[in-house]
């Protein structure tokens, strides 16, 4: 039933990537599309946590940063091949998420929020202060490009395809989880945590698993980011970066994989279109977060769809 339309969407998506990849040669546009891809990964990762487990992370940029810094240090300082650095980067983020999530997820939704907010700040401080390892406030330079066997991802075009293939794989992965036993249990937690437990769902373990998974996806994006621009600095992974990810999910609509793509695109393009945006960024994001949540608590695209459906139902009668 659902399967057919899902496969059609995957096909359209894949064709879209191929078409864009082959037709665009302008490196500015390719870079922009790569960033949309990275942001989509971040939005997807947080979307799993917010939309399906009903929990929020206000420090997701920290996991993004951990992915980037771990691979930077390993591949540059210790000359580890990127392919080995990848599991280390993702694994480190997942381990840390587990440590942070363990105590906070036992309690009400507020605590993971506060815990991750504080965690994000501390990680940011560590990136900035631990200069012997991270390069400190001025950043980490000289990260090698990605080379896997004989494949080398140095051109914008090659990186474009790499990032978007990863996005496609992550989308498929998320959809599969959502449509599985575990995914249904997660959605049941969002609908009613008490009832979910009373039906036999181990809510705490599941929430922890999703949080860890979510941190892993964010770290994967960080890994790709580091090997894309060869230079990272703490500023990229601060509090505002975390808020940007939350805003993408809120715009894209919670519990919607394709919405994440939309939210990520919009928030990547907006600052490019409006150059005066950076001055007003915080005010605008703040207003978006407040108004969307007040009027459409399931997110902007979801809310608009719901309104449209209600309108149609009304007219059919």
């Amino acid at each position, binding site marked *: *039933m659902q399967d057919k339309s899902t496969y059609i969407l995957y096909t359209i998506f894949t064709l879209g990537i191929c078409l864009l990849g082959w037709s665009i040669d302008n490196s500015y546009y390719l870079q922009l599309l790569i960033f949309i891809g990275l942001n989509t990964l971040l939005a997807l990762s947080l979307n799993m946590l917010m939309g399906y487990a009903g929990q929020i992370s206000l420090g997701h940029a920290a996991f993004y940063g951990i992915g980037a810094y771990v691979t930077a240090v390993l591949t540059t300082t210790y000359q580890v091949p990127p392919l080995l650095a990848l599991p280390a980067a993702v694994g480190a983020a997942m381990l840390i998420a587990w440590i942070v999530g363990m105590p906070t997820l036992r309690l009400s939704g507020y605590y993971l929020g506060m815990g991750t907010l504080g965690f994000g700040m501390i990680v940011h401080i560590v990136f900035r202060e631990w200069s012997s390892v991270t390069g400190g406030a001025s950043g980490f330079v000289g990260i090698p490009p990605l080379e896997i066997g004989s494949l080398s991802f140095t051109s914008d075009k090659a990186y474009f395809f790499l990032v978007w293939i990863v996005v496609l794989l992550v989308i498929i*992965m998320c959809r*599969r*989880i959502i*449509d*599985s*036993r*575990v*995914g*249904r*249990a997660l*959605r*049941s937690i*969002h*609908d*009613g945590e*008490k*009832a*979910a*437990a*009373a*039906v*036999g*769902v*181990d*809510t705490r373990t599941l929430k922890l*698993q999703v949080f860890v*998974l979510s941190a892993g996806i964010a770290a994967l994006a960080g890994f790709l980011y580091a090997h894309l621009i060869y230079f990272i600095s703490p500023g990229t992974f601060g509090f505002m970066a975390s808020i940007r990810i939350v805003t993408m999910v809120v715009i894209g609509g919670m*519990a919607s994989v394709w919405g994440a793509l939309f939210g990520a695109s919009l928030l990547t393009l907006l600052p490019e279109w409006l150059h005066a945006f950076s001055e007003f960024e915080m005010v605008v994001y703040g207003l978006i977060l407040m108004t969307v949540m007040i009027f459409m608590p399931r997110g902007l695209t979801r809310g608009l769809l719901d309104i449209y459906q209600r309108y149609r139902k009304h007219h059919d009668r």
Partner: protein
Amino acid sequence: MTDNKPLLEIQGIGKAFGGVQALEDVEFHLEKASINGLIGPNGAGKTTLFNVITGIFPPDSGQIRFAGKSIQALEVHERVRTGIARTFQNVELFESMSVLENILVGMYTRTRSGMIESILRLAHTRREEKQARDRAMELLEFVGLQDYAHQKSSDLPFGWQRLVELARALAAEPRLLLLDEPAAGLNISETNQLGDLILEICSRGITILLVEHDMSLTMSISDQIVVLDQGKKIAEGPPRDIQANEAVVEAYLGKGKN
């Protein structure tokens, strides 16, 4: 399955909320594969007893043994795994999901694939999913809602939502089924059908504890009845005795006069 030990043993259970003594020294046993009515006026503590048995909150005193073992230390979801399932007085379905998906969540404790398996979708995961779906459809057929499997659960009429909840509870393959006012909101013929369903469930070896205000239903299908009033057990016995019991009549009429 042939030993004659009771399936559920409630021993000296007490529970207070602030100043309200919701349960006081409640004690009874449930035999295997029996239907047991739990009745009492509003506020008698019936739902509270369900909540204590399922582990939603701990009792202040007393012990609960299930199949011979204390379940005190088990969390809510672990009790489902050991074989205790329930329905809620105010239907608590997962609203954003379809009827079928609700039943599938009910199977959580009886299926195994974890997150990694669901990503890989190997053959045995797909097989488990297929079996689960077939079983869920069977359960929906059992309660007569197979045609509504793909409807959103919140779109069904209230009485049918109760049946979905019943099917969801059965999906956990319980040995003990706690039903909290399953007939509320059903009309007479639906109530009769429900009575037949409950008898059928019991005949499959499942023990039932039934809270129900519809006396004709409770009296006609129960083997045994426990009466609570203001948190205390005031009577226990077969339906015939309970109907003639003065304390019970008093409890109900006394309430009625207020």
